[in-house]
């Protein structure tokens, strides 16, 4: 009697648990496909941004490491070669004709050749790159602080975002771009790097120029930067979410 009941109960529980996990999973998958749930979930990024910005001093530096901490292999992720004819031409010329344009909501739009950028004061920082996938690598970056470029072009008061347009396109022809807040351009560690570990940036790591924005995840570190455009709104650029990965569902605020 008793064992029969126990077995029945066990069967009942097993059935219930199995059904519950199935319901939970298919329920979550259905919710993921719904029109309303992802928009609620994405609110968390706003809370995170608000709270993180509130608790983080504006000029707090990301940890800088020593030479001994540098990764032997710094993985190159995402696009490792823009693959366009135009870019191949620049590689052949060793980027001597590469120009960086800074345009949009600025007092005086300007452009710099790579050589001109290298003549500006530089900053070198040994920092940790945290990929959204979970891995971390430490590298030594040398480049020109974005704040110096901003002082040259003088952003207009309504400029809210700096959009970094890149030379790479994906398999479907979508151009890569990223954006950060104009306020974050003034952080001392926000630089346009042209050297990794004391050598000129190679193609897989974003030659000739890549953004280092040390307080956020790897996908914000745009490679192959050709143009910085200051805008008031991200709507109308790419998919409108502020970046190539953002258009595919990753958060614009990548502080966590």
């Amino acid at each position: 009697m008793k064992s029969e009941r126990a077995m029945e109960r066990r069967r009942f529980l097993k059935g219930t648990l199995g059904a519950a996990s199935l319901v939970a999973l298919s329920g979550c998958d259905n919710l993921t496909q719904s029109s309303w749930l992802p928009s609620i979930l994405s609110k968390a990024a706003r809370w995170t941004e608000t709270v993180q910005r509130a608790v983080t001093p504006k000029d707090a530096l990301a940890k800088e490491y020593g030479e001994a901490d540098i990764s032997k292999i710094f993985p190159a992720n995402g696009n490792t070669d823009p693959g366009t004819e135009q870019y191949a031409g620049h590689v052949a010329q060793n980027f001597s004709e590469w120009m960086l344009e800074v345009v949009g909501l600025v007092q005086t739009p300007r452009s710099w050749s790579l050589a001109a950028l290298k003549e500006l004061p530089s900053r070198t920082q040994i920092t940790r790159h945290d990929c959204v996938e979970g891995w971390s690598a430490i590298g030594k970056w040398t480049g020109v602080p974005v704040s110096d470029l901003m002082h040259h072009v003088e952003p207009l008061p309504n400029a809210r975002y700096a959009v970094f347009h890149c030379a790479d396109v994906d398999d479907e022809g979508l151009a890569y771009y990223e954006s950060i807040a104009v306020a974050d351009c003034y952080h001392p560690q926000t630089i346009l790097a042209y050297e990794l570990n004391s050598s000129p940036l190679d193609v897989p790591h974003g030659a000739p120029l890549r953004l280092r924005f040390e307080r956020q995840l790897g996908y914000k570190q745009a490679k192959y930067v050709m143009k910085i455009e200051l805008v008031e709104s991200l709507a109308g650029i790419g998919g409108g979410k502020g970046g190539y990965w953002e258009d595919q569902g990753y958060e614009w605020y990548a502080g966590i």
Partner: protein
Amino acid sequence: MALLIQSEEVISREGDQMPIVEPSASETLSTVSTPMVSSSPVIERVYRHRLPVRISHWLNVPFLIILIMSGLQIFNAHPALYWGDRSDRDQALLTIKPVQSESGEVKGITTVLDHQFDTTGVLGYSDGMRRAFPAWATIPSAKWLAMGRQWHLFFAWLFVINGLIFTAYAFASRHATRDLAPTGKDLRGIGKSLRDHLLLRHPSGKEAKRYNVLQKLAYACILFGMAPLIVLTGLAMSPTIDTAFPWLLTIFGGRQAARTIHFVACSSFVGFIVIHVLQVILTGFFNNIRSMVTGWFVVQHKGVHHEV
């Protein structure tokens, strides 16, 4: 079933006469309860879990399931764990990956500290897919890091808010100090309690009204040890938080170490949940569930044994 109905009849009969026993006042319980001397079991109703505890408990059920499963989705994006700040591929503590043999057969291989295990079907390769954790264990079930992060980082907020409210309540109401903190006497009886648990001998009567020492330790560790640990190691993986609170990296031994501890803490949550649910089933499933839903727990006193 018949037995259950009978005992519920007893409860409702007793309910009219029994004074409502104040929750958590374990010391006073034996004086207000009035076990009757008879040969049939005496049933006492105890108000065991107060409303804030019950709400917080049930909210954690979906929160934890979603956090664990979406966490495994995120883990799958880079299924390896390391110590320190860097993820040097040749220094991994754990990896889970699909490996194709020369014959073309794909196996799931889990490597822990250089020891390899064939985990085909569950870890590394399952249902014809090359993925660390199988589809049934992740949210969403398909490989989708961006969406896994959205689930995880949204419910992490809810989990933290729920945890903070619970903690404030637990200390303000003295639930933490009275019911969860083990006493010296509890700790001295730990050996006996351990033996009883292993033999599946469960406390009854007066003893069943309060948490036993292993229960107290398990709850206290998970609530005030593992939960803060999993939140802090989660925050330590945030590059922005690391600039605001660099000591997080120092205490956990680096960002990749924090990620490893986060994973181990999650495993301890899974272990806790399995044992917790098992104990709930073994020590009177319906009584336990009722007490966490309505607050009321039923204690059976042996008929011949009376305390007054």
